């Protein structure tokens, strides 16, 4: 039985710098099993930096605490975080020429499960994933992200999430650059993967995907900080008004009033 009072994922006072430039200036998140959170913010606010740091990118200087199921993971390299159940859907998935999607995925799934997954079983899972995301089977033989269109890359990220079954998935702009059909497919994938025992953090700067994936909590991220958190209606408000109205002064004030809404959402998730 999971401890309902303990968040599945949390970070506390997380600060991230690169080359002595402070990008994330203290971020706190608590995400419970069964929840979906959205982190929204303008371009350049540091969302991808935060996501990469949470996943364990070695180039960043990170201070603060990251907890996965109560276990501090901030000292672990990315592959150990992944094996423990973290997943990052990349804003810009990286190409690895010469490595086929199937070979890569089989290695990844084996690493996640801690044992080599038999070929037959793997193929079954792979093709089921292809079907769910309407990906052509010829993908299996293509080289990883090499020459893929933006949409193909994003579908493949979601496919990986379906196969790796993370307990906590961070999806960095998985919705950007998708046409409406692809967006629907990707959203279905996210909803398919989400369950009572895992959690998702959707990072985005558009409200669009939130029409298909309903978040429990929405955080607004600006200039390296979460300036406001609230329920799904916050995303709608952002869509209508943009980010500019949320200058820091109002944000600080608003933050206080919205604490109640966040608490309500958390209680709903726990209950």
């Amino acid at each position, binding site marked *: 039985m999971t401890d309902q009072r303990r968040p599945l994922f949390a970070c506390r006072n997380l600060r991230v710098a690169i080359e002595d430039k402070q990008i994330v200036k203290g971020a706190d998140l608590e995400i419970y099993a069964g929840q979906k959170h959205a982190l929204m913010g303008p371009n350049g606010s540091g969302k991808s930096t935060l996501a990469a740091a949470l996943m364990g990118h070695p180039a960043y200087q990170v201070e603060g605490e990251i907890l996965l199921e109560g276990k501090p993971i901030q000292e672990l390299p990315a592959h150990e975080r*992944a094996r423990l159940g973290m997943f990052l859907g990349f804003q810009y998935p990286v190409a690895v020429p010469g490595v086929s999607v199937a070979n890569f995925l089989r290695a990844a799934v084996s690493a996640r499960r801690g044992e080599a997954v038999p070929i037959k079983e793997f193929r079954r899972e792979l093709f089921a994933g292809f079907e769910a995301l309407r990906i052509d089977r010829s993908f299996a033989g293509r080289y990883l992200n090499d020459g893929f269109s933006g949409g193909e890359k994003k579908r493949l990220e979601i496919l990986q999430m379906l196969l790796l079954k993370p307990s906590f998935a961070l999806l960095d702009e998985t919705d950007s650059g998708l046409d409406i059909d692809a967006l629907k497919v990707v959203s279905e994938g996210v909803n398919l993967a989400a369950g009572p025992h895992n959690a998702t953090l959707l990072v985005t700067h558009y409200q669009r995907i939130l029409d298909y994936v309903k978040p429990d909590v929405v955080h607004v991220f600006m200039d390296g900080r979460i300036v406001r958190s609230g329920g799904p209606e916050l995303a709608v408000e952002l869509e209508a008004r943009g980010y500019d109205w949320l200058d820091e002064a109002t944000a600080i004030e608003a933050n206080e009033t919205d604490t109640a809404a966040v608490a309500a959402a958390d209680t709903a998730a726990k209950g």
Partner: protein
Amino acid sequence: MAESAVLSVASKPTVSTEMVTALSRTLGEHPGALAWRLRALARYDALTLPNRTEQRWRYTDPLALLPSAEALLRKLTSAASGSGNETAQQAAAEWKRLRDDEPAVLLMPGDGPRLNAAAEAAGVAIAPLWQTDADEELIGRAVPAAAGLFAALNGAAWNAGMTVRIPAGVELDQPLRIVLPAAAVSLPRLLIEVGPQAIATVIEEHCGGAAESRVVSVTELLIRPGARLHHVLVQRWQDGVHGHMTVRGRIERDAHFSSATAAFGGRVSKLDLGGILAGAGAHSELRGVVLGDRRQHFDHHTLHHHLSGNTRSDIDFKVAMAGRSRSTYTGLIRIEPDAPQSEAYQENRNLLLSAGSRADSIPELEILTDEVSCSHGATVAPIDPEQLFYLGSRGLGTDEAIQLIVRGFIASVMDRLPETVQTTVAELVSARLVRVTGGI
């Protein structure tokens, strides 16, 4: 594991007329062979060491590849007296190992080369080099003794030579495998003729040896009109071996030469590999995968020489260096003035797996006519840390990620190996990758 230092000789070793004469007599060669050897010897005597200011020798000391005069004398007199031939012993051991493992056709100079029944029935003929005068018109056609110091040394003093003739129109479904174990000093010479319209795969496998072994080999491949030759050179010497290998395919009209090099072993290894496109419609493809680690030094030179118009050449050389290893690649494309409508492509990519490794890549183009299509590319880069992070975020640790990235990097070469050698080379790649990632 101790790393051997590069031990160079002080000067090029002396070879005497008497040594060469005795050698030729003991090997039972046709008199024509001795005359040819002595002409090569005159060349050898006249040649100075390669000029280190030339690109081709800038990074590799020729003195590190030559045997000492004493070792050479010992070797040649022992071959001449027919006693104490450790090559034969090594060859016998290799022969046994390989024969147990696989049914391929096996040939080995120094141990009485043998053919299997299928190849014999197809009319393939093997013989020690130049025992009949038939070899006179073939030898030196792809690698003349005048080609350079190493070609001249081998031409004067080869101590294990073999001719392979594949008759016209024959299609061999099994590869011919020629195993060349390195002795203290080895000067093997292969002469292979693929008759018109014939199709064959030849594996040239350099193996064995010990610290201080020196190898100077020459392989001449004559690919007659319409023939297709798949040539695979596997270099898996023991750690301390120093060697220089020359391989030339002479590609006649409408013939196809496809050569794949897989180099892993030795301390200092230089390969001079090329195709001479001598007739219209000739096509040459050179591919390479080189995986180095520790303090290995690899030097690869490729030549595509377009003598005739309407010819096509393509090079894809992939080099991955770990530890403190070092690689040099120089690629010369030469298109003669009367070789219009030729196409020549050359690509050399180098992946550095450690901060201490190094790779240099130098294209050399001599395009003497305008009506050609020619391109070349060279890159030297470390592994992309974003690739490591991406693979890491999927649960792959650094070693596993590097193995995957390197396998992807060399895939274009591996995928195009003849099927019959894919497993062998893949095993060598795996073994080296395990060693490399263990040592990072």
